């Protein structure tokens, strides 16, 4: 949690506090719809319970590979390659291309976002057309996988790459995922492990989580609101490892990133005039790297949630991203090289 001394009654703080409620209202109908549609595809996978305590014939140390910009800017792939046989590698869907392109098949991939068209691109969208691209400029703008800005050609490359390895890839698929993602994974014969999202308190009679559980009886997992945090939760509470390293877990942007390339710019720009856009962002000093980064209202909210998750466990977390804003609450700041040398 953010320390009281750091709290200021700013516009940004107020917005962040409102995010849980507002996002809940906007997302639950889509999630419920996707869960119902995905029911007939459950037979193509297993419950995530099958991976409870499983270590992929490795030790009790894992690395979560998220897709923040530091993953490529501070490239630690050589270290990852060196230790890949001893380190459990859990990848966010957005980091899968980076790993496969570097010859690493992660032990587990996590996907959860219910967006109808964007997420399938992380697995290569065989049905991508120019007209689809025209409707959504996300991949042209985003700062996570800059290769994907070459929309058609990078998608073709990624589709081929994913098809090559898909049968060997374990994917923890949230039942909230879009039909496009689920069909892609089923058709490519990936090893699917299903799980349900925590949306609200399941003990409540009208709980959306309870409704979802009744549909498919899959385990309910607290995702922390984003795929990177969910990957950490899988390492901590499903695989039950002792130590978790984070890579590419930035929840922020490098100072030279144009505001237009930030994750939620499209929504913010629709919401307000150009002169007010900066109200949704905050500049943050990282004392470990002695550098500034900037973050937005969604990432700041994710950070709060993630730090709370980390404080609720005995598992030790090490941030090896070498960038970003996740440096407090007992999280050890180090490099992947040092982390692997000491713990493997």
């Amino acid at each position: 949690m953010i320390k009281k001394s750091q709290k200021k009654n700013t516009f940004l703080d107020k917005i962040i506090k409102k995010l849980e409620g507002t996002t809940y209202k906007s997302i639950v109908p889509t999630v419920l719809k996707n869960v119902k549609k995905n029911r007939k595809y459950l037979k193509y996978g297993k419950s995530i319970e099958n991976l409870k305590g499983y270590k992929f014939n490795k030790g009790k140390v894992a690395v979560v590979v998220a897709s923040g910009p530091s993953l490529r800017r501070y490239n630690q792939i050589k270290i990852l390659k060196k230790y890949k046989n001893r380190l459990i590698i859990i990848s966010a869907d957005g980091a899968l291309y980076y790993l496969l392109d570097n010859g690493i098949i992660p032990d587990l991939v996590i996907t959860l976002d219910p967006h109808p068209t964007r997420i399938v691109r992380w697995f290569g969208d065989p049905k991508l057309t120019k007209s689809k691209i025209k409707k959504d400029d996300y991949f042209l703008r985003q700062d996570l996988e800059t290769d994907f800005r070459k929309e058609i050609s990078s998608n073709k490359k990624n589709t081929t790459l994913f098809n090559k390895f898909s049968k060997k890839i374990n994917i923890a698929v949230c039942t909230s995922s879009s039909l496009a993602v689920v069909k892609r994974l089923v058709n490519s014969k990936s090893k699917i492990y299903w799980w349900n999202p925590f949306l609200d308190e399941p003990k409540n009679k009208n709980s959306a989580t309870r409704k979802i559980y009744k549909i498919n009886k899959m385990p309910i997992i607290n995702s922390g609101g984003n795929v990177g945090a969910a990957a950490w939760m899988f390492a901590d509470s499903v695989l039950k490892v002792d130590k978790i390293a984070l890579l590419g877990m930035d929840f922020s942007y490098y100072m030279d990133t144009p505001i237009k390339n930030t994750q939620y710019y499209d929504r913010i720009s629709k919401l307000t005039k150009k002169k007010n856009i900066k109200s949704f962002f905050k500049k943050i000093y990282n004392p470990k790297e002695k550098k500034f980064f900037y973050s937005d209202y969604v990432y700041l909210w994710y950070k709060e949630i993630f730090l709370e998750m980390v404080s609720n466990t005995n598992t030790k977390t090490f941030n090896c991203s070498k960038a970003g804003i996740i440096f407090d609450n007992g999280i050890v700041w180090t490099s992947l090289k040092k982390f692997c040398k000491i713990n493997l």
Partner: protein
Amino acid sequence: MDLLKGNYKLKKNIKKKKLSQSEELEKKFEKEASKRLGGSMVYVAKKKVNWTLNNK
């Protein structure tokens, strides 16, 4: 807060409070939030995993 409107007229004219720029933006934000403002799953449970709903 919305004004409570009755089916009668007051002698005194009550002016609606003018919102500051930040309050205006906040109000607009809430209205637009229904169109999905990013973020995926939203609930942070103290319990991390419920293998079944009968779990305590």
